[in-house]
């Protein structure tokens, strides 16, 4: 199975994603340059974390005009799988692949730490290797990670079980004290209506090695392999 990882100017988690796919998962990984128009026949596109185009104007606002994003949007519209992580999630929202937007953390601080997340649904191509309600520990690293959307949009996401990951406290409950950035309804990850584009603000690719950060992110990648193999 071939994963394509987009490198924008300012991406800084593209090599982490490469490591997760090639070394931890043992699948093929190729880098996709932002100026390219060729997705190289990949099975999954990863939009990685970082500060694409310096996050000028707003996080993700300029990156969505990268040449490769035209191909990524068309690919997603054809049902191609896109895993959008952190800055990639911001880019996916700006590109209209996912609803909502991101604003500064309530604390006004950049936060870099492992946090507990609850897997809200396993009925997706990205989470079928987890257990429903499972609490996993995955690092966050963001200054603008507070997810916002209109109340109607949030209700629509909830009603369709499209909230995939939620920030929770130590007891596994989505409380205010378990919400590191003030995200609406503790949302850490959502999926599009067609089920082929996942946005996740925490970094599963940084949780694939027992010696550094644990392995709770690996099942996300394994889910994709299981789905494509099936």
């Amino acid at each position: 199975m071939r994963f394509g990882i987009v490198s924008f100017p300012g991406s800084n988690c593209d090599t982490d994603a490469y490591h997760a796919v090639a070394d931890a998962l043992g699948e093929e990984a190729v880098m996709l340059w932002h100026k390219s128009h060729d997705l190289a026949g990949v099975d999954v596109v990863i939009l990685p974390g970082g500060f694409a185009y310096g996050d000028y104007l707003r996080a993700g606002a300029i990156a969505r005009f990268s040449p490769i994003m035209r191909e990524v949007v068309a690919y997603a519209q054809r049902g191609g799988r896109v895993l959008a992580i952190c800055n990639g999630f911001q880019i996916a929202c700006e590109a209209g692949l996912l609803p909502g937007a991101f604003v500064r953390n309530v604390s006004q601080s950049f936060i870099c730490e492992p946090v507990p997340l609850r897997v809200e649904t396993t009925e997706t191509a990205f989470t079928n290797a987890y257990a429903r309600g499972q609490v996993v520990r995955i690092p966050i690293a963001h200054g603008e990670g507070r997810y916002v959307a209109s109340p109607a949009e949030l209700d629509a996401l909830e009603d369709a079980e499209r909230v995939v990951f939620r920030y929770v406290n130590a007891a596994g409950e989505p409380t205010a004290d378990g919400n590191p950035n003030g995200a609406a309804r503790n949302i850490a990850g959502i999926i599009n209506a067609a089920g082929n584009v996942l946005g996740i603000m925490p970094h599963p690719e940084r949780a694939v090695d027992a010696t550094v950060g644990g392995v709770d992110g690996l099942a996300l990648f394994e889910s994709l392999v299981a789905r494509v193999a099936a």
Partner: protein
Amino acid sequence: MSRYRVAVHIIPREGILDPQGHAVADALRTLGFPGVQDVRVGRHVVVETDADTAEAARTETRAMCERLLANPVIEDFEIASITRS
């Protein structure tokens, strides 16, 4: 065709918590401006653009705001001024 200088204000939407604005409001009150009720911190963008009329420059800048300069999920915008440059 004339050149116009269009100034745009982009501010966080009502209902979106603006922690930066709150911090500035607190600082202003501490500084001795007790009447400060609320502060919202946004962006001021100045676009120089060629257009036939000021109205055309306004229409065009409005489209720029809708498509790139502001994100309607989180921000409101207003065209603050249009001057010939």
